[in-house]
């Protein structure tokens, strides 16, 4: 009886385990800078995706009507997070992919008062770097550290 229970438990354990493909590296070597179209979408050609970014602008500026022509900067880190920001933003938006879209994981505040002027993401081996003029920030997951 014990043997039967053991074998059943073994089968159930094997059946329930998740198939994992690891390790993986989702990082982009360079950020992509995209211009928002009239319909609020941006099209990324190298990594081929189309995405509606209006909700980010609404979240940041409470306005999603005047987004056409604005630039948004995107980069993906090794873990697969997508980081979004742009000129005039005070936050970095960190997303993770889900079926049919991206879901916000964290909104990383950079400054309560000053907006980014000329932001740019750089991919570094252990983190994503955000530079804005002479200011430099290191982003790892939802943590942000101002670099000296």
């Amino acid at each position, binding site marked *: 009886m014990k043997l039967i229970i053991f074998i059943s438990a073994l089968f159930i354990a094997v059946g329930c385990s998740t198939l994992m493909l690891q390790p993986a590296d989702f990082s982009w070597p360079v950020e992509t800078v995209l211009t928002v179209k009239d319909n609020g979408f941006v099209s990324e050609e190298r990594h081929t995706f189309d995405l509606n970014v209006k909700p980010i602008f609404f979240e940041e500026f409470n306005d999603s009507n005047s987004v056409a022509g604005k630039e948004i900067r995107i980069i993906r880190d090794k873990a697969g997070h997508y980081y979004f920001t742009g000129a005039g933003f005070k936050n970095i938006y960190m997303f993770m992919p889900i079926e049919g879209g991206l879901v916000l994981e964290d909104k990383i505040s950079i400054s309560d008062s000053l907006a980014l002027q000329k932001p740019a*993401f750089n991919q570094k081996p252990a983190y994503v770097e955000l530079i804005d003029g002479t200011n430099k920030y290191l982003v790892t997951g939802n943590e942000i550290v101002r670099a000296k």
Partner: protein
Amino acid sequence: MKAKMFLSVLLFLIMNALIVAQSDYETLQSFKSQYKQIEESIKSASSVDECTAISEKINNLRSDFVDNKTFLDKSLYPENFESAFTKIENALETKKTDLTQIGALTTQVGTLQTQVTELNQKNEELIKQINELMVKSEKDRATITQLNRLVSQLRGNINQRDLLVRDLVDSLLVEFIKTPQNLNQKEAQAIISKVNKGNLFYNIERTIADNIQFTKVTQMTPGDFSQMKKQHRDFDKVWNQIGPRLSSVYLSKKQKKSEIAQIDSLFVEWSSQINNEIWKSIHRQFLEKEINLIPFNNSDQFVSSVSAFIDNEIKNLDVKSREESENTFLAFIDSVYSKTVEKEWVPILFENNMMTQAEKDIIDAKIEVWKKEAGPSYSYWGYIIVGAIIIFVVAYMFQKKKKPAIKAD
């Protein structure tokens, strides 16, 4: 002193901060922009010296960005750092080769141009002399010899000049092949200056006009026509390649565009002139043997004319004497059709799609019918055969009689 040191350190820190705060995206854009500028300058380079300067720029770009090689390897998708440089270095090498070749061709074109001008003058003089001799009322032996000599000289000159003009056109074609379909202003200007330098339009017009004139003032052989047809075909093919592109180069120049259109129509005129002269020459073959065919100017008319003549001959068999009909038949077949037309002219007609096998079959069928009706009587052959048998028998008997008898011991 302390203040100076403080300032230096501050400046160093500011500079360092600025250098460190470099966006990878901007680095990539800067590389791409300089790379594109080099690509453009390769495309528009017009001398080997320019290529040398570009080569220097490529080396500078490489050394400026070599520290970012790892980053660029990943970011220059689908290229990488090395393949991007290999690509522009290869493009530069190809351009250098092209420019060297074009340089050599330009020198060659200069020489060709002088030769063409000299030949144009000579040919003009020759055509004038030939025309004078043609209208001379008394054509003595000396005149005819001189005429033949001049015609032969003119033929040689025209061929030589055609080849030279072809070379001029070919050199332009090489230039067109190496430039993109949509020329920029600099490229278009280079083509225009080459066209002007080679006096291209005038020389092409002159070449065609002289060829047309040559067919008019001389009696050409089937071989001459065959050669001229080939010349026309080859030249027309090359012109069809450069004509439309020259039109786009001279888009805004009305006069030049009309010259191009004029050359187009001259090519058509040249072709139809050769064809006309071929049909006239065939007609002349029959006339020389007093066979009056209705003049023809194409294969359809030729078949109709021959058919009408044969039908008429068959119809008149009862009216004309047998001997007269047979003489006409023999003159038509033996002296003209089989001897020259079928052997020498029909192959040219076939070769240049001026006549089909089906059309020739119609003529052959007509001749077969005519042969049965009016061909030499078979009774003649009968007499000849009987005569030959009699001669053979007599000769045999005569031989037998002459042989000495052998007596047995």
